[in-house]
Structure formats: C-alpha cells, structure tokens
C-alpha cells in the first residue's frame, strides 16, 4: 500500500491505478448482471417469467446500480436503476417494457465494454480488444461499384469488403480467422457457381452468399445445391447480406419471436397478429420467397408460414430446411391440396405441419399458438452465443460440422466443453444465474475460438467447437490454454456462491472416428473421462488411450450403478484383485475392444442395460475384436431377462449373475476365473 502511495504521489492517482485492476476483475460479474436483466426480459417475452426470476433480476439490477457508479460507470447506474424500477412490483410487464429492458441490457453491456466514462482505460476490457480484430467479407466480383457500396454500408459494423479475382488470391491475402463471410457475384454468368465450391473448400468456416442478375428460382436452388447460404438478386442490399452472413459475428439476438407469413393475405395476417395472444409475436408478411430471406432482420423466425402447394412449395421447404440458419424455425404450410400423398411429400420435404388453406382465422391462430408454445420450450434453451441455439440447433450445428468435414479433406477436431458443477450453480444461485454463466462462457468461447468452423451449444450445459486444420493434439493444447486462462481470470465466473470450472473432450478426424457420428461419440467419451477424473480437465481420446494402455486389471466392472460397482470393487480388492470400473457401454467398448484395445481384464463383469451402448453391443464388439479369447465375460442381468441370458451366452459370455447381486457369491464365482485364465500378455 505504502509503495503505491509513494510512487503515485497522491491518493487519487493511486486509487485510479488500483480501481482499474479491480474493475477489470469485476467486469465478468457486472456483465453477468446485465445478462440477468436480458434473460428476465426474454423470459417475459416467452411468457415464462416467474416471480422468483423477476425478483432475482430486480436484485441484480439493484446491485448493478449500486456498484456501477463506484467504478466510474455512472450511466450503468442510471440504466440499472431504470431496469430495477421496471421489474418492481407484481403487475404485468408490457411488450414495450420488454423491448426497453432488452435495450437497457445491451446499453449496459456496451457501456461496460467501452470502459468508464471520462477516463481512458484502453484494454481494460477483453471484449473491447477482441472487437478490434479486423473482419472481412470476401467479395468475388468484377463489379467495383458493388464493392464500394457494400464496403461503405458494412463499415459501421466494423467489417471491410475484400475484393478478389480468385479464391487463391484471397486465401493468400486474408487470414482464415479474419474472414467472416463471402459473397460470390455471378453477374449474368451462372457457371461462376463453381467458385462457391472453391470458396467453401478454402474457407470452410464461413457462409457464402451468391448474388446475380437472374431472379430465377432454378438458380436459387442450384446455388443452394453447391452450398451457398443464400441467393440475392441485384441490386443487392447491405441489410440482406448482413442477414445472410449474419450469425454471431454481426447479429444481435432479439427477444421477441417472429412469424414470417409468405403469401398470406394482409387481412389474415392482421387477424393472426390480433388473435395470437398466447405469446408476444411479431407477424411479418412477405410476398415472395426472396423476401423471406430478407425478412430475417432479427435472427431466425420462430415460425414460417407458407401458403401454396405443389413442387414449388416442396422445393422451398427443402431450401429452408437445407439452410442451417433456419434450423430452429418451424415451417407451416397452408395448402389447398389436403391429400395423404401431398401432405406426406410436404412433411418429407421438411414442413413441420400442413394445414388446409381454408382454415378459419381462429383455428389458424390456435395452431400457430401451439407451435409458438413449442418454440418457447425450445427457446428456453436459447444460447446467447448465437441467440438461436437449441437442442435442435446443436444437431444442426453438428450436421454443418459433418458437411465441413466432408468438404474440407483436412484435419478436423471436435471439442466438447462442459461446465462443471452446473447443477450446483442452479441449486445455489438459480437458473437465471446459471443461464447467465452459460451465456457468458459462450461469449468467451466465441472470442477465443473466433476462427472455429462451428461453435455452438452442446446439450444442456456445454459447447461444441469444431476446428478445421487442427489435429487432436493441437486442439487439446488450445483448449487447455483456454481453460487455464479462464480459470485464472475471465472465465472463472465467480459469484458469491458459485464458481464455474470446465472439462473438455477432444477427438479428431480421422484418428478417433471415420465418420462424424463416431467422431462425436469419441469426443463424448473423452469428455466423460475428463469429468470423471475430477473435472477442470481436458482429455483427448488418444491421450486417454495412452494412459489406459498402461493398465491391466484382473476384473473390469462395466455397470452404471455406482453403488453396486463400489460394493463389488471393495469386495474384490479385499481379495487382492485389481479392478477398473467403467460406467457406460461406449467407454467399455473403447477401452476393452477399441482400436488400440488399451485395457485388458481377465474377467469382465458386464451389465446388459448400459447407457450409451447396451451390453449386447459391447459383447459383440468384444467378440469381434478377439478379446473373448483371453478374457471371460460374466453378464449381470435382471431376473426378468432370461432370454437375454441365453442370448448373451450364445454371444460368448462364460457365466451370468442375476441382480440383485449377492456380492459374496459373485466374488466366489469370479475368483476361480481370475486364477484359471492365463496371465494377460501385454500388447
């Protein structure tokens, strides 16, 4: 303390120095409070705001109002105070208020990221630094005027247009991680669509938009066929480009769901807007397919309503379903042809629901309400990373990853990151805080892995990051560095009662999996392994195998019932046998029958009803890989499964034990098996 005073000369300067340090440390907590306000606002919009969440948001706003000004954020105090006031009381919150709250949260965030007023504190915020990274949209066009116009319109977003003749030239000049999108201008030459393929190979992480003179549906479909994210006909507007390339790089999530109605009469639109009372919804009427793309100003619509039938509507369903940006949208078709065949082909093309065109306004409103309610269920899974991620979204994200894997023909790694103790955070600090932690982590991951091909939500409390041109060891190094740094500061999201830590699993193509599905399974296994080893760890499947290869045990216990496995383990170790517990089928196959067969056991106790992969599948894998020649499998089964026992014995099991297991009996049966079998030979 004395040192600071003497060097700085006066208390004010010393105070400023130390305030800057504390401010930087406190920023994540402040941002979480802004998130809490935003989450509560979107919960109102979704109709799921309960009193507890409302009080909690009010409290967070109150705390932020109290703290902001002390750190030089006077405007944050004012904004938070307004939010606190809006949350006060028990009365209903109108949609205007929701909008204002969303706005307040965004303004608070901006103010926090820009640093305190009247003081220059460069670099005090990690977000501000990351924003300074230059972003480019590649434009392949002969039209310099188009480049100039788009450049001028995009510059306020901090994005520059980079004009190129060839993909190779672009690749040479621009770093992958600086490119956030690409536009291929066909002019009047539709053979230039081939350029889209080369762009997708050279820059697999970005979406490519095609524009051209032609307004034909055929060209649009052809563009979708070569992997374009969308098609725009000239004159191209900047807003449309932003929408199509959009995503996390340029778009702000919006709290109010949108319904886009294509070809629905104005009167019916009005009736719909008036009668859908279940939820706040914004109905946007458009009259051609292109406008459907253009109308996505605020993220993917909750519902798309299309009027029409036949091949054209079917093709449109396919185009919408083929565009990952519409992954969360429900697609409803109002058709005049209500016949089983027609309905089946529309559903097959990707429609979620088909209704007769003659449907009454009230029935239509009721049906839309049902879909909005389902959407609301999904929206509770919304991820601030993208503003649209849901379970369904994470599947579509993986599909996109698979697509990139197939196209890129380069090393590709999948990283699954999960928040440890997420349930504890929920219990101690509430769902709102847990969601805020999740949102915060999403943003930090996005900043860290801005070069990732795909980044999104993974199930309930995790994230998936797909890195192209990265093998498993490089990916492991990167994610380890990230977890270390995050534990040290930014991502060590700490509140009074909760602290988030992370575990991660890494797998790479083609070492750990030959197709996308096995790759994902391998990453899941690695993640589970990391978590089981105490959390806060990163594992790659390879690493796991290397370590496991050291071990040979007498008995491997494959069962997901930890009470049972604990008891068996105790009893067997008491008799001097070495043991290893594996709690799911996938891990068992990977460890005992995997490519490198890293673990050997003289006896394998195998539960038949396992999570992941059932006991029969594990047994088949063991048989196929020749493990049964040197190991003996004892099947653990419920009494009601006599047929299963026969089947298991036919597959090569030596014995079976009926649950509930008599531990002493089991030990007596296992002992001779361990002693009879020849010693396991090291591989």
């Amino acid at each position: 303390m004395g040192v600071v005073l003497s060097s700085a000369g006066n208390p004010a300067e010393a105070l400023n120095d130390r305030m800057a340090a504390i401010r930087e440390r406190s920023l994540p907590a402040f941002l979480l409070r802004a998130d809490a306000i935003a989450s509560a606002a979107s919960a109102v919009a979704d109709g799921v705001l309960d009193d507890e969440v409302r009080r909690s948001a009010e409290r967070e706003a109150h705390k932020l109002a109290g703290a902001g000004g002390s750190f030089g954020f006077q405007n944050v105090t004012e904004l938070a105070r307004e939010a606190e006031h809006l949350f006060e009381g028990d009365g209903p919150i109108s949609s205007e208020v929701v909008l204002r709250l969303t706005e307040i949260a965004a303004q608070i965030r901006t103010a926090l990221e820009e640093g305190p007023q009247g003081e220059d504190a460069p670099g005090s915020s990690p977000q501000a630094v990351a924003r300074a990274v230059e972003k480019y949209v590649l434009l392949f066009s002969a039209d310099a005027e188009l480049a100039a116009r788009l450049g001028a319109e995009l510059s306020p977003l901090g994005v520059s247009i980079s004009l190129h003749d060839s993909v190779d030239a672009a690749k040479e000049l621009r770093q992958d991680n600086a490119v956030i999108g690409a536009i291929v201008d066909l002019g009047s030459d539709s053979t230039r669509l081939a350029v889209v393929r080369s762009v997708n190979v050279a820059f697999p992480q970005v979406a490519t938009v095609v524009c051209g003179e032609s307004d034909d549906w055929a060209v649009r479909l052809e563009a979708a066929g070569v992997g374009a994210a969308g098609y725009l006909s000239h004159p191209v507007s900047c807003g449309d480009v932003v929408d199509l390339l959009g995503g996390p790089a340029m778009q702000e999530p919006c709290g109010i769901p949108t319904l886009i109605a294509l070809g629905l009469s104005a009167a019916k639109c009005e009736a719909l807007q008036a009668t859908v009372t279940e939820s706040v919804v914004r109905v946007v009427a458009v009259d051609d397919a292109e406008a459907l793309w253009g109308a996505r100003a605020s993220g993917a619509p909750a519902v798309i309503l299309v009027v029409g039938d036949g091949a054209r509507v079917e093709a449109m369903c396919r185009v919408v379903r083929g565009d990952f940006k519409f992954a969360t949208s429900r697609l409803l078709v109002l058709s005049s042809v209500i016949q089983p065949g027609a309905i089946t082909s529309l559903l097959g093309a990707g429609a979620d629901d088909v209704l007769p065109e003659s449907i009454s306004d009230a029935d239509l409103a009721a049906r839309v309400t049902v879909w909005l309610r389902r959407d609301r269920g999904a929206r509770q899974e919304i991820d601030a990373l993208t503003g649209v991620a849901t379970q369904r979204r994470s599947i579509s994200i993986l599909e996109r990853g698979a697509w990139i894997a197939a196209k890129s023909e380069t090393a590709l790694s999948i990283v699954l990151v999960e928040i440890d103790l997420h349930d504890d955070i929920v219990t101690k600090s509430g769902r709102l805080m847990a969601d805020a932690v999740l949102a915060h982590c999403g943003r930090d991951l996005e900043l860290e892995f801005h070069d990732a091909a795909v980044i999104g939500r993974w199930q309930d409390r995790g994230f998936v990051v797909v890195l192209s041109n990265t093998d498993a060891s490089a990916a492991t190094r990167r994610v380890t560095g990230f977890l270390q740094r995050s534990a040290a500061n930014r991502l060590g999201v700490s509140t009074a009662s909760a602290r988030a830590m992370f575990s991660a699993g890494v797998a790479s193509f083609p070492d750990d999996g030959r197709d996308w599905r096995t790759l994902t399974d391998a990453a899941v296994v690695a993640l589970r392994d990391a978590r089981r080893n105490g959390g806060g760890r990163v594992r790659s499947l390879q690493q796991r195998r290397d370590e496991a290869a050291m071990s040979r045990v007498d008995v491997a216990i494959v069962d997901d019932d930890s009470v049972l496995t604990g008891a068996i383990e105790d009893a067997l170790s008491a008799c001097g046998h070495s043991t290893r517990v594996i709690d799911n089928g996938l891990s068992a196959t990977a460890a005992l029958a995997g490519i490198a067969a890293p673990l050997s056991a003289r006896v394998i106790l195998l539960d038949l009803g396992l999570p992941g992969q059932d006991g029969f599948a594990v047994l088949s894998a063991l048989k196929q890989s020749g493990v049964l020649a040197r190991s003996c499998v004892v099947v653990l089964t419920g009494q009601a499964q006599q047929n299963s026992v026969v089947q298991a014995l036919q597959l090569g099991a030596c014995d079976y034990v009926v649950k509930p297991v008599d531990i002493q009996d089991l030990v007596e049966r296992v002992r001779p098996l361990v002693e009879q079998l020849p010693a396991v030979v090291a591989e």
Partner: protein
Amino acid sequence: MTKTLLIVDDEDDIREVAEMSIELGTSWAVVTASSGATGVARAAETKPDAILLDVMMPGMDGPATLAALKGNDATQAIPIIFLTAKVRASDRETLVALGATAVLSKPFDPLELPQQIADALGWGLS
C-alpha cells in the same frame, strides 16, 4: 488510537473498493466481512469503532444484521452506517429509524467515501 472500521458487504468488488478507498484516504484500520452473519461474529471479535453495512445481502440482510448487533451487549453501542442503492427518502428514513447512525448512497465515489464516513461519525481522517 487508530480507529477500526468493519465493512460488511456480500459483493467482493464493492468491499474491495471501499476497503481500498479507506486505506488510501485515511489511517483507519479496516476489517471486512462478506455476509451479515460473519459481520456479527467479526464485530463481536474485533470490536470495531464503526460498521459500514450493506442493506441488501442474501440470507441475513442489513436490517437483520443491525438488529443482531444491537441485541448483543458487546456490539450494541457500535455506530452503524448503512450503505444502500435505495434512492427513496422513505427507504432511508426507515433505515435511520432502525437505529443507524447514517445512510450513505451506492454508488459512492471512492475518493469521497472516507470524508462522508468521517462526517457522519465526527471522526478525523487520520
């Protein structure tokens, strides 16, 4: 003799800023507590000359902490200053009626906080 001030606030950052501003601006000693309950224990144990008490805390809040302090012979005479983000005059009056010596506003200016506390208590800064 050196004065001792106990700061009770559940927010780490606020506690740290208040502590820092007092250490830089005065010669008082500072003791901190991160909850009402630890505040009560810390007060009994260190016998501070005054307590700076946050109002909104999880579990035992400011008023409950004040009641506990006033109910204990060992701490009953220690002057208490509330620190609150409540802006309404009526809220402040309620807090004073509970037996607080003064009510200071959040957010506070770290450069002025020591003087505000000194004024409320009739202390000097050194």
